[in-house]
């Protein structure tokens, strides 16, 4: 295979991953590493480096669209980024210490968990009285637009959410993914933040989290330009198109199909990790 053919193939696959990831809201990053390792036979470390770069691109590229909707909360994001960035550095350091087989197995498990989490239901919102004092002290509460005017909300279980965010950051730094599923889990389920606020704020945080580990990945030589280039451009193009189509498309069945793909890739990664085939 020549460089040109490889570049085109990787760019097209990344484009599809980015498109489907944006349409389903599951993120394209999560399938990139399995795609590169299983389909293209790329070493998992190069794959993680390239994926991490594409994660920064999609998160930052989509940010202005999300902001305009008026759901994201910059304070919640900034506060929780302390946890995610420390986690990301920890994850990047762990990545250099454990074997690629272990990383593959962890990756597979995370894929299965993400597929499960994306199918779980949203919770009822708590009343302001139910929230702890930390929410007020840190001024984390806010309001979001609804058809009946702005609705205010507060933030529960701040310490639990903060710890989950550390975990999300560690996974992001270890596996080169956005770990949006864990971030939304922390905000939506633990901190009881309204779903729309959770997802948009999570997107906002993903770029900063990924940047924290990307510096370390770059200096360790994990980021190969020949690989990162088609992945980044492909995913970015796909996700920007996906965000435009999102309004019109019916995504329920697509979401189901994509979840099944994630499960299949997760199992494949675990098997490959155990057999040492990566």
């Amino acid at each position, binding site marked *: 295979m*020549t*460089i040109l053919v*490889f*570049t085109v193939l990787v760019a097209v696959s990344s484009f599809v991953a980015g498109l489907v990831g944006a349409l389903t809201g599951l993120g394209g990053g999560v399938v990139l590493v399995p795609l590169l390792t299983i389909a293209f*036979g*790329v*070493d998992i*470390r*190069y794959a993680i480096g390239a994926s991490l*770069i594409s994660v*920064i*691109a999609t998160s*930052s*590229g989509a*940010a*202005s*669209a*999300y*902001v305009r909707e008026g759901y*994201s*909360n*910059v*304070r919640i994001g*900034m*506060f929780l*980024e*302390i946890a995610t*960035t420390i986690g*990301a*550095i920890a994850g*990047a350091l762990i990545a250099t210490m454990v074997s*690629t087989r272990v990383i593959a197995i962890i990756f597979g498990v995370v894929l299965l968990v993400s597929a499960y989490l994306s199918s779980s239901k949203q919770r009822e919102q708590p009343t302001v009285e139910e929230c702890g004092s930390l929410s007020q002290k*840190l*001024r984390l509460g*806010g*309001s979001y637009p609804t058809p009946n005017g*702005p609705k205010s909300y507060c933030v529960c279980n701040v310490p639990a959410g903060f710890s989950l965010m550390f975990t999300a950051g560690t996974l992001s730094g270890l596996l080169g993914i956005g770990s949006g599923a864990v971030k939304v889990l922390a905000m939506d389920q633990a901190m009881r933040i309204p779903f729309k606020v959770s997802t948009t704020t999570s997107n906002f945080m993903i*770029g*900063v989290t*990924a*940047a*924290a*580990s990307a*510096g*370390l990945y*770059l*200096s*360790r*030589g*994990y*980021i*190969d*330009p*020949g690989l*990162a*280039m*088609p992945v*980044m*451009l492909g995913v*970015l193009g796909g996700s920007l198109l996906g965000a435009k189509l999102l309004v019109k498309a019916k995504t329920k069945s697509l979401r189901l199909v994509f979840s099944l793909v994630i499960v299949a890739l997760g199992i494949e990664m675990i098997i490959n990790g155990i057999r040492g085939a990566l």
Partner: protein
Amino acid sequence: MNEHEQGDRRMELIIGILLRLGVMLAGSVVLFGAVVYLIRNGAAALPDYKSFHGESAQLSTVEGILSGVWQFRGRAIIQLGVLLLIATPVARVVFAVVAFALEKDKLYVCLTLIVLAILMFSLLSSVLG
């Protein structure tokens, strides 16, 4: 909406635009580097991605990348785009420090500075090699 929230809203809008500009700039640089790289090396055989070697200092340190860009190397230009992309969220955090300072929100200036310090720790490791 209270005053705080209006200030926050404005900040988020500007940050959103800033991020988009950063990505567009980084994406254009990567695309340009890709054209140079593919014109020169497109027909060559694929490098070995199956086993991990790690990139040389030329492609993994800021100094090496900049000197490669100076010599008009495609891979170095792509890597410059990657650097710009990594810098984009960092610029966002820097902007947030300033915006919170303008809002006279000391607590959030401190919290944001902590995030910035963590990012700097990671980035300096790549500058210093």
